[in-house]
């Protein structure tokens, strides 16, 4: 019996009332069939318990934001612009916020016309609007493997066929991208867009090298495929030189740029933006009208006041200092507690480290064990749509204090060691010792690019320089 049969089966028991389950199932859209319950998602819900050290989040540490600054900015806004803050706003975004977003773009190395910015409700809405504009059921989206776990439900909701191109220490592998495009050509399928986070990728932690950025832009231009460049963490760089964005290299012809204030100011205000070729942007505006009419006026004005009255650069620098120290602690602790055969990335910025354990680990099962020890991470499968990622995990260092990072990694290490010992006993092998993992370049050497990048599964090329010049 198929699912369709189950959804459309007449109520059990003839004239008796329709059970709730079937009453609603019969109304669901086809696309909801991919929106399933999963053990992993339910386990993730447990990570919010207060006793748990959660390295599963992707949070900016908002405790770093001075409360008095917020109070002042809000009170000025209330005094001067109360009516507008409480009113609807244009779908494209308010004029007031445009200088602020233009400043952020300039800090990322881009000069843009403020009028071309479409203000969105977080960067997440850009992903949604791009899909809404471009994707019909069955259309191909190319994404990195692993990709941003939060994009997975969006891609699924639009019934996209997501093809994931693996990463290595230099970001998305362009050779694999080209193979993939050639294969799709042979199948007569043209991808609608390539989704990438070039800086400190979520969840991989790696950065797309300059050479690959150029290649990616060239491919997009030659093939006339759009690239969605998601850049939430670009300004949170802890070492190395900033690289030009794809948008900058392309001149805005085939690259749709997604920006957000979630990581450099506040995720709670839900302010993001996009720059896109005009015909695409116009469709996105219509799509946004249908979604939410406009992004919060209150938030947009708050940002405008904040940028006018405070040194936002300084706040970003302070956050970067704190996150850099937390990253260093995490990398140290991984070196101390992870067994031989484990690898992890050394991010030059951003919020995440991608940890890969020996192949006999399944990190969804491991999370169940870890929760018993009051520690949590994101199982790697959350970052794939094709079932891969089972031996990897995303661990966050930005939202957790240094002592908790130490304790959290020690607990994960203990659980990994316990399971490694079990596996050795199941297979008659020798359990690996702790502190023999790879990829944990000491903080001082973290910029030593030849040694810094551990592979993202599966590794096919090694020894390339990563993320510089």
């Amino acid at each position: 019996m198929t699912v369709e049969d189950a959804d459309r089966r007449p109520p059990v028991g003839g004239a008796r009332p329709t059970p709730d389950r079937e009453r609603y199932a019969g109304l669901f859209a086809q696309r909801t069939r991919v929106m399933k319950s999963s053990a992993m998602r339910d386990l993730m819900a447990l990570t919010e318990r207060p006793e748990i050290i959660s390295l599963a989040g992707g949070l900016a540490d908002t405790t770093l934001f001075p409360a008095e600054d917020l109070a002042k900015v809000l009170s000025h806004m209330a005094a001067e612009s109360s009516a507008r803050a409480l009113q609807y706003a244009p779908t494209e975004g308010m004029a007031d916020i445009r200088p602020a977003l233009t400043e952020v773009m300039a800090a990322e190395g881009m000069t843009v016309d403020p009028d071309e910015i479409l203000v969105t409700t977080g960067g997440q809405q850009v992903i949604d609007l791009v899909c809404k504009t471009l994707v019909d059921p069955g259309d191909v989206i190319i994404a990195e493997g692993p990709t941003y776990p939060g994009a997975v439900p969006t891609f699924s909701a639009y019934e996209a066929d997501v093809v994931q191109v693996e990463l290595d220490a230099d970001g998305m592998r362009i050779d694999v991208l080209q193979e993939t495009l050639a294969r799709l050509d042979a199948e007569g399928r043209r991808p609608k867009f390539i989704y990438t986070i070039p800086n400190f990728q979520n969840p991989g932690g790696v950065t797309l090298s300059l050479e690959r950025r150029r290649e990616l832009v060239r491919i997009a231009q030659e093939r006339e495929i759009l690239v969605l460049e998601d850049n939430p963490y670009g300004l949170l760089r802890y070492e190395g030189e900033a690289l030009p964005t794809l948008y900058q290299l392309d001149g805005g012809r085939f690259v749709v740029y997604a920006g957000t204030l979630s990581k450099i100011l506040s995720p709670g205000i839900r302010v993001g933006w996009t720059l896109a070729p005009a015909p695409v942007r116009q469709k996105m505006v219509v799509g946004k009208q249908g979604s939410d009419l406009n992004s919060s006026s209150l938030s947009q004005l708050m940002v405008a006041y904040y940028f006018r009255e405070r040194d936002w650069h300084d706040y970003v620098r302070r956050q970067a200092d704190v996150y850099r120290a937390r990253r260093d602690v995490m990398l140290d602790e991984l070196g101390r507690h992870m067994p031989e055969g484990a690898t992890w990335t050394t991010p030059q910025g951003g919020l995440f480290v991608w940890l890969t354990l020996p192949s006999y680990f399944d990190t969804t099962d491991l999370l169940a064990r870890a929760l018993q020890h009051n520690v949590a991470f994101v199982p790697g499968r959350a970052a794939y749509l094709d079932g891969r990622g089972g031996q990897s995990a995303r661990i966050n260092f930005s939202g957790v204090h240094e002592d908790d990072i130490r304790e959290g990694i020690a607990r994960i290490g203990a659980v990994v060691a316990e399971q490694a010992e079990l596996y050795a006993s199941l297979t008659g092998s020798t359990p690996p010792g702790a502190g023999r993992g790879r990829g944990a370049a000491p903080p001082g050497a973290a910029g030593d690019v030849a040694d810094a990048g551990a592979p993202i599964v599966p590794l096919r090329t090694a020894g390339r320089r990563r993320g510089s010049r």
Partner: protein
Amino acid sequence: MRIAVLQGGGSLERQVSLQSSQRVEESLRRQGHEVHGVEVDAGLVARLVALRPDVAFVAVHGEDGEDGTVQELLEVLEIPYTGSGPAACERCWDKVVAKRHFATAGIPTPDAVSLSAAAFKRLGAADAIGRIGERIGWPMVVKPSRQGSALGLRMVRGPEDAPDALMAALSYGDRVLMEHRVDGHDLSVTILGDEALPIVEVHPADADPYSARYTIGQTAFTCPADLEPATTSAAEALALRAFRALGCRGFARVDLLLDRRTRELTVLEVDAVPGLTHTSYLPVAAETAGIGFDALTERLLDLALEGVTDRA
């Protein structure tokens, strides 16, 4: 009545519990009861003492809710509650213990061997996997002995699959059950009071058992199951025997397998706090018997209060 709906808890089945309890709360409010959702956490006893409910509706799955812990506390607090008592919950929750009781009572259950993580780590139990396979037959199902919702459950076709499956199961608990896999129809029999409700046959349409269980539309049901009358009677009788053998009270869900080839019935497990979500089997059985969800929750409360008289 003032009713405390116990929910949540820290177990891996917390989300399932929240789905069950939400549905129960809505139902009890529709019937005009004074309903209080009570989270099962460090403040549980204090809240129950302050609230003094007439009855507690236990909608907590997994550890604490299903292993008899919450029930023991409710006994101490002298608050009547839905479902089975602590001892029966303990027996149902641990599949190994349940199987031993089945064996003693002469209730057929698939052959199984249970081993602890320590047996593998310290006693070289891995060397016995081949023999276990020979004894109970391949393929087998490997699952944690104390875990619900099919978490950590894996199919093992031969010895080469065993290490990964055992690793998975032993992530959820320290004891694992290696059970002969019966190629059979999945039957679920609800016992309500002291009678069996119409049998639900379950046809999972998703390879992932968790997704199949809790996603609307991912599992098809046939209810009443399309069985010969003699098989239906035998399944109902067997379910009742299993219910009684473990000392259950009020209601429970008994999972059976009907071997496709031999038509033999075996009992897999008894769930003392079965799910009441929109995709759970028990409400489907009740609906087929003409008992809507509101009537079902009301009946469970009646049984809980009858239990008080019985125990007195």
